[in-house]
């Protein structure tokens, strides 16, 4: 079993604070991997380094056998490495449908030339994007609000929209940053079902989450981060029994 994503020896400092200090881990192809750890462990920073939003001081990120060093975020998204955000970041002045169609449109369709010339071909390729957008919005349970502005969605719906947007990019790996944060419990349940369905279709997931119920019920493997590096990896049962993990969350006994 080969790893889809390999992160090796990542270091990232913000001023004097080391957010990541030699973080090394890998995400297995076709699995759902959880990434947990106490606040300040460096989970979101790691996600930003992997997605290219932050460049690391040291270390390498390789995806699908390719070193991603220096590749800007939009190029990483284009090769199938897609992330979502901790606080849902919808494009507020675009409708739900537009958010999803945007993600599904290619750079070739978004040139000024195509806006002015050869518009028939563009119309045809866009029609295919519209069709996929409908399919994915229906699966995400957002079709009935497709023409509403994205800012009018509830917190949970915004999380679903982020996932739907990510799917439009035909991702190999989706990194979810706290998908259950601020989401009503019944919606968390349907979110878990949706993610499991997508994983069965071959999409690899990496999930940062504090909701242990979600981690326990979804993840094949869990990586525990503490103080900017990997503490331990294993199944949820294994890591939840690990003394080092308990110490990291609760503090060491005197």
């Amino acid at each position, binding site marked *: 079993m080969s790893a889809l994503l390999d992160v090796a020896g990542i270091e990232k400092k913000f001023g004097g604070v080391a957010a990541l200090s030699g973080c090394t881990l890998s995400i297995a192809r076709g699995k759902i991997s959880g990434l947990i750890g106490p606040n300040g462990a460096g989970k979101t920073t790691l996600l930003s380094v992997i*997605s290219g*939003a932050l460049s690391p001081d040291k270390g390498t990120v390789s995806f699908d056998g390719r070193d991603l060093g220096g590749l*800007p*975020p*939009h*190029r990483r*998204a*284009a090769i199938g490495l*897609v*992330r*979502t*955000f901790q606080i849902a*970041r*919808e*494009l*507020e*002045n*675009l*409708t*739900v*449908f*537009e958010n999803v*169609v*945007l*993600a599904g*449109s290619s*750079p070739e*369709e*978004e*040139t*000024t030339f*195509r*806006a*002015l010339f050869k518009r028939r071909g*563009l119309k045809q390729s*866009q*029609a295919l994007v*519209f*069709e996929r*957008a*409908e399919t994915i*919005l229906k699966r995400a349970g957002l*079709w*009935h*609000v*497709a*023409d*509403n*502005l994205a*800012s*009018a*969605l*509830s917190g949970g719906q915004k999380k679903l929209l982020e996932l739907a*947007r990510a799917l439009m*990019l035909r991702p190999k790996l989706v990194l979810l940053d706290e998908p259950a944060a601020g989401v009503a419990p019944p919606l968390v349940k349907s979110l878990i079902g949706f993610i499991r369905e997508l994983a069965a279709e071959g999409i690899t997931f990496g999930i940062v989450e504090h909701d242990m119920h979600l981690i326990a019920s979804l993840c094949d493997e869990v990586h525990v981060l503490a103080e900017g590096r990997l503490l331990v990896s294993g199944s949820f049962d294994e890591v939840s029994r690990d003394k080092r993990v308990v110490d990291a969350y609760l503090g060491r006994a005197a």
Partner: protein
Amino acid sequence: MTAYLVTILILASISAIVALGLNIQWGVAGLVNFGVVGFYSVGAYATAIVALGGGGAWGGLLAGVLASAVLSALIALLTVRLTDDYLAIVALGLAEVVRLVLLNEAWLTGGPLGISGIPRPFAGLVTEANYPVLLLGMILLALAATLLFAEALVRSPFGRALRAVRDDDTVAAALGKDALSLRIKAFAAGGAIIGLAGALHAFYITYIDPSQFTSIVTAYAFMAVIAGGRGSNIGLIIGAGSIMALLEATRFLKDFIPFLDGTKLAALRLAMIGAGIVLLLIFRPQGAMAEPRLSARASRPEAELKPDRLSERKVLPHAS
């Protein structure tokens, strides 16, 4: 009276074209260009210099559009990594640099005296007295063509990507959009349109000097876009028209307020426009019209979408 109306229509159309350019840059792509007048004057001067230097009226027009577009692309290239406020400062500074160059490089620009005798397109066809009507026809054609161009851009996948970059460039990048390149293209496209307006200005006045290019040009363009609704090309035509109508209508105030002299009245008119914009922002911040959106119901007619009206609401003005 006809001459007066023709003048008003020409001025309103030129300012509407400027606003169309600004709308692509600021309304759609979120790039705060406080230096509109700089690009406008570069368009006018490039037109005059090339037209008089042997390029003729049409060569001048082309030069005006290209000069402003290239300058815009260069500025965008230099500043595209800056966030909103800093781009605004750079653009403001650029307009000032352009003004100083026009004022001081007399060998090229005629300095404070400006450039006169700018050749006009189709000037031989009609008499001098009738020319403004012909020019108005051409300017209306230019306005229509610009409107079509801007609408095609705004409603295309390109325009959608620009709106995404405007709303949140981090998210746009996470969705595979190259925000830097999109911004440069938007700034250059808007700059080309503003340059076109500058060229038309040169053809209309036939004599240009630095005093014609003050920051009020920038202010009118922003007012038109705000009043019309950011992102809406049709709306801003209404906006530009209303502002011109208001400006001209208040000219007749002197008949009703005899105790104010011309200078005071001019200041009062500007103050009224300013108050109008403030009121508009309080009571209708989204402007006259919303930006065009891609409707799921229209795009997938067979999918029977029942719209969910409960959660519909407006979120303008854009946070930027």
